């Protein structure tokens, strides 16, 4: 039975792995190793797998658990791990292209947004959830989700235009096009 449950769980997870991995990377950039978040979320999701109503809702189910795991983790944490952020950047520099560099600058800018705004933007813009799905994941109203998206984009725009290094990279990208 346990093996069967494991296989069923992993079979549902495999198609959404990429989206989930990108969400975790963007969501915890500079805070923690995103693999830890993924492992912890999968364990929790597997533990509560029997409560899943339908297989179609597995994606929302997984992301909802991830959001709650993060909320609990942030309550326990008392200091940011700057060391982890630096190590992450070093690792990315060894393997990334210019496009990846822009994405990680985006991650860095988003890290300065509020938790709710950051999550909304990632779920909507990167992971591809609808506003209704996001409202279910964050357990809030659709109007709140829209407001968070709007304010998050405004603030993100301000942050991105302030960063000089990003301006140089983006200018090079545009010239290349």
């Amino acid at each position, binding site marked *: 039975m346990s093996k069967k449950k*494991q296989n069923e769980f*992993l079979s549902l*997870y*495999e198609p959404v*792995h*990429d989206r989930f*991995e*990108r969400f975790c*990377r*963007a969501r915890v950039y500079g805070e923690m190793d*995103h*693999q830890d978040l*993924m*492992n912890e979320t*999968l*364990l929790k999701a*597997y533990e509560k797998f029997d409560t899943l109503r339908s297989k179609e809702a597995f994606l929302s189910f997984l992301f909802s658990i991830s959001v709650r795991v993060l909320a609990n983790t942030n309550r326990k944490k008392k200091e940011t791990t700057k060391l982890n952020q630096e190590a992450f950047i070093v690792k990315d520099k060894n393997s990334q292209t210019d*496009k*990846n560099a*822009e*994405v990680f600058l*985006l*991650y860095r800018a988003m890290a300065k947004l509020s938790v709710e705004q950051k999550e909304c*933007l990632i779920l909507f*813009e*990167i*992971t*591809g959830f609808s506003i209704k799905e996001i409202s279910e994941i964050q357990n809030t109203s659709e109007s709140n989700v829209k407001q968070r998206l709007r304010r998050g*984009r405004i603030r*993100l*725009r301000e942050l*991105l*235009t302030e960063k000089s290094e990003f301006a140089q990279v*983006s200018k090079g990208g545009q010239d290349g096009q």
Partner: protein
Amino acid sequence: MDNSFNMDKLFEQASRIETEVSFEDTKQAFMKSLILSAGGVLATKGVLKLLTTKKWLIMISAITTISTASVVAVMSFVPNDKEPIEASQVITTNASDDQNIIQEEFVIEPLSELGENFQMEEDGVEDSNSDIIIFESEDFDPTADFIIYEEFDNDDTSHIEFDANGNIAKTKKIIPYAERFEITSNTTEDELRAMQTKAEEAGIKFNYKAKIKNNKLQRISIQAKIDQRNNQQSMSITSDDLKDSDAPVVFGWFEDDKGNANEMGYGDEKNLKCCTGKGTNCSDHIHLDDGGYNNFIFSDDIEDALDELVDLEFEISDDLKDVLEDLEDDLEKMGEELELTMNEIDMSEINSILDDLQLETIDLMDELEEQIEELILKGIDIKVEIDEDVKEEKENKTEK
């Protein structure tokens, strides 16, 4: 506009960026985590035991420290020998009446300070010129501390309330001695013995030492003690200038209904006890807790004694407060250190242990997968064979 275009482009790039962790890697990590969470074979028990032991060690040491600190704090609350006495006996008298007297505070000096002023000659030694005789009772203790009472002021009227015209409006009730003795330079040895007899009949252990010169009593030392179950008092009186003094040494005591002495007194006049209650109720008196105490402290006002009590309580509260504050600080520090230690364990030690476990579990996982595949393969083969047998039987039947 350019900015929004860039943002949309950035988000698109972010949504298509290559994943760093593959599904297979994630699956493996997930399986290992499942094994660990389920209390699997490989060192899980050891890890849990290690973590539990460490945590228990820290908890136990913290609890022990806290318990020890609590015990120390409790022990410090126990009163020590340096705490002052509970109260002092207060005796006041009325100076307006010839029969009554007011006593002022007396200074009590130990024998060592009497020194040269009071030196008894040895027994049997007589001065042929002065006819000095020394006599003392059997149980007189020459080593006991003697007290010299200074002369008191008879003008204290603190027990009297005056009206607007200066007339006495209200006085406290004066209780006279049950027995009173005056010792002057004319007191004889027989009179001292009679005093002793009366005192002992009342339950007072009475001893004395006297020096007579030229048929005049010059010096007297009295040791008196009440030693009852709930009442213990001791008194030492010394006077070494009876010859030159007009004031007698007055010694007396108060008795209860049964005729037993319950309180001794010293004074030049008759009455030394001052009560505010009805009848003979002297509830305003504060008695010493003896414990071998030889000296009385006389005060002309009860309020002075009460003030001392108030100050005493304040001192205790301050000390207690300091101890409690120190204990709170120590507990807070211990709590912070414990939290730091726990965080350190969570952050580094667990990760390193889990890393080691992961390396060890990889091989086991591979072996388990191989075994499972073999079992699955064997199962398929068996099924095929059965089907073929069934086919043959069917064919045989049909032929038949």
